[in-house]
């Protein structure tokens, strides 16, 4: 019965649409290429004419707007390409001279090659974001395994291996840190966002090393059962990568960083190993939840965040979803990451005990370039799409700025790193959205 109703409604919709097409001038073609049927419809609107007279000068301005919309439906990939061109013809007549000037503005920026962009987004999500979600979870899993091995055989060599694994995990985090949205930033932000539990500094630029030390010391001095201490209930600024770094890279009593002192502390106080493993397992729990959200089930929708995002179903599936597009989410997240690097003192506050800040930032630079430069069999890279949209220079500028960022990390000062990050922040605010004809919004930039 429901199917029948749906069919009737669908047929009605098609009928209404047909009427609509005939009203505004339409044509359609069907072609078959590589076994894929492609239907193309073109509509040309009736001109919308608007005129105004300046009350002070008497100058008459008349605009005529014609909208041409071309929609292509492919039945195999179910991709849709909508190309909309707006031609505005403006006629200005000066009553005193009778002079008339005519200008035509074709809003060609709206030609977005939507299916190409959609495919590029899918490639970005799969090859860059989801793969880094999975890689980060794998690295955390390895860190958890390594902590267990170390605690079973507490040697300086094993400590070094565990420390190295922490650095690898931290680097993996900095490959994911530019993509804070979705499962990394839970929809109900009244609860603490997931990423705070991984990287407490990212919250507001507060260095919580002192908080972690105090809490660790307190836990070491306590005689309570570790298993009874619920690490999932600890505050976000007491756990995460920072808690593991403090545990692994210094002796709690005096912050000595020699391998011998740290190892001996683990040998002499088995409780520290229990705490180390508890921190590690809590990080693994958090990271696995994020991975599940991206890959399997987001917010009990029964669908992965990846699927909801790429099929543009987030707004329909969730009650409290902002409704912006995938490309908007990715672009804004990248922009916020580089804004964060510019505004916070990452080089002097983050990964200081492990001395691993710069390699983490290099990991971020690498993933940024990869995001923009990766193509696949079915999709072009973002750089190529930018060039196709006549923004090749912008693509070059961004690539150059990424290289400048890398150079600053390797040889520059802290201020030069910030400055390079600020340039990339600007690129993700302006050049990239402009080149892809992506609107990030109008109101958020105003400050009014």
């Amino acid at each position, binding site marked *: 019965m429901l199917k029948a109703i*749906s069919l009737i*409604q*669908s047929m*009605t*919709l*098609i009928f*209404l*649409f047909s009427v*609509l097409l005939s009203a*505004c001038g339409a044509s359609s073609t069907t072609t078959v290429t590589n076994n894929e049927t492609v239907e193309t419809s073109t*509509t040309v*609107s009736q001109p*919308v004419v*608007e*005129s*105004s*007279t300046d*009350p002070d000068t008497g100058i008459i301005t008349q*605009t005529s*707007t014609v909208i041409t*919309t071309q*929609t292509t*439906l492919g039945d195999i990939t*179910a991709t*849709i390409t*909508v190309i909309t061109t707006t031609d*505005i013809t*403006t006629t200005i007549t000066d009553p005193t001279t009778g002079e008339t000037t005519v200008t035509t*503005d074709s809003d060609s920026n709206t030609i977005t090659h939507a299916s190409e962009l959609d495919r590029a987004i899918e490639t970005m999500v799969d090859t860059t974001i989801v793969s880094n979600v999975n890689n980060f979870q794998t690295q955390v899993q390895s860190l958890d395994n390594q902590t267990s091995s170390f605690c079973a055989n507490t040697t300086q060599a094993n400590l070094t291996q565990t420390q190295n694994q922490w650095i690898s995990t931290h680097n993996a985090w900095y490959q994911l840190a530019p993509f804070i949205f979705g499962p990394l930033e839970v*929809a109900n*932000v*009244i*609860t*603490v*966002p997931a990423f*705070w539990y991984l990287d407490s500094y990212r*919250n*507001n*630029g*507060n260095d919580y090393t002192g908080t972690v030390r105090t809490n660790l010391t307190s836990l070491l001095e306590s005689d309570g059962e570790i298993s009874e201490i619920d690490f999932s209930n600890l505050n976000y600024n007491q756990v995460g990568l920072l808690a593991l770094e403090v545990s692994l890279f210094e002796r709690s009593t005096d912050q000595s960083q020699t391998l011998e002192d740290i190892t001996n502390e683990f040998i002499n106080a088995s409780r520290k190993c229990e705490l180390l493993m508890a921190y590690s397992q809590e990080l693994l729990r958090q990271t696995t939840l994020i991975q599940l959200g991206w890959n399997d089930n987001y917010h009990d929708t029964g669908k992965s965040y990846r699927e909801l995002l790429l099929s543009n179903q987030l707004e*329909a599936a969730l*009650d*409290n*979803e*902002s*409704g*912006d597009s995938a490309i*908007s989410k990715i672009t804004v997240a990248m922009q916020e990451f580089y804004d964060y690097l510019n505004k916070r003192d990452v080089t002097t506050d983050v990964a200081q005990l492990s001395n691993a800040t710069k390699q983490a930032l290099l990991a971020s630079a690498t993933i940024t370039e990869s995001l923009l430069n990766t193509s696949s069999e079915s999709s072009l890279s973002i750089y190529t799409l930018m060039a196709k949209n006549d923004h090749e220079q912008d693509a070059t500028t961004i690539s150059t700025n990424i290289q400048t960022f890398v150079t600053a990390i390797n040889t520059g000062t802290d201020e030069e790193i910030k400055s390079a990050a600020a340039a990339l922040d600007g690129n993700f605010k302006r050049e990239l959205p402009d080149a892809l004809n992506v*609107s*990030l*919004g*109008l*109101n*958020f930039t*105003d*400050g*009014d």
Partner: protein
Amino acid sequence: MNTLLSQQGLSRRGFFKSLAVLGLSVPAAHAMFDLKWLTEHHENERWLSAQGRKQGQFSLGWINPAQQTTNQALANFRGHGLCQNPVNRHQVVMLARRPGTLAIVVNVESGEIEKSFHCAPNRNMQGHAVFSNDGQFIFNAEADSITAEGKITVRETHNFKQVNEFSSHGIGPHELAFMPDGITLVIANGGLLTRPNTSRTVHNYPTMRSTLAYINSQNGQLVNEHTVAASKASIRHLDVAADGTVAIAMQVQRDAMDNNQLVSLAGVHKPGKDIQTLSAPEPLMIKLNDYMGSVKINHQHRVAAFTSPRGDMAMFWHLDTLELLAHHEFHDVCGLSISQDKKHFVLSNSAGKIRQIDASTLKENKHKRLNFPGKHWDNHLLTVSLPS
């Protein structure tokens, strides 16, 4: 007079896109034919907003929610605030975004621009104005282009000629409204010193002082003024409840601060008391990114709603308990109004979308979503009832 009307229905492009997804989204087709809600809006209700992203598009746009259509009156400037003449209710004024100098008077029934008016020399507009209760005068927030001192100009509405001017008793007056007595004006003096020749650059971060000023509209005398503790918080938007409670929305000048401390962006001022700031959990506060862009009070439900386009969020506090009641995520939301029947908060964003939040449950009515592709609703939304 001049006709700048153009009309765009939701249906043409909406149907086109719907056909494109046909077969992929049957529920969407169901939703399209569930038209029962169309009757829930009054025929004379309109939602107005400055509209457009670039020159050539800028306009005063309005939505007829019952018909799901939009109209617009093209303007050659980007508008900001709007106000309706309470007596000649077809008459709406849209002010230029600061530091513009122009406003247009639009007949929303006919679509005609009836009049435009400029600032006096060496004055620039600050984006908002308000009509007197008798509709005879319009009070406009302006600034001295040389000294940057805040000004409130008074124009008669039969010809929109300026007849008076007095100080706003502060720098950077922005939104203003009449108190329930119809005489006292409450003005958000943002405290940010800008000049037209340097556009929106702020020149007084170290000394900025933002106030909520109460002024006698008949003589310009300062009745009293209030400030918030956070010195870099700029009070910029406000709304007044029937009992005189004022809700204020602020933006924080983070670049002028030497710390990362979170600052409340919302507040309530009750007569005879200090301003009380509204609190929210830290994750929400951070997400707002130092910017609330609009505020509206639903008098019936004693709820103050705020929007933050940088936080992609609308937030709702109780006016009396000051308790945070709900929040709703919506990309680049800033436009905020209340439906004519007072049952919904209406939200708009720059992607042309409209959402409605039930004022009693503070949950979104998803079936009331509207989408007008190609429209870009600017910072403020105004609900008006046209004469029957």
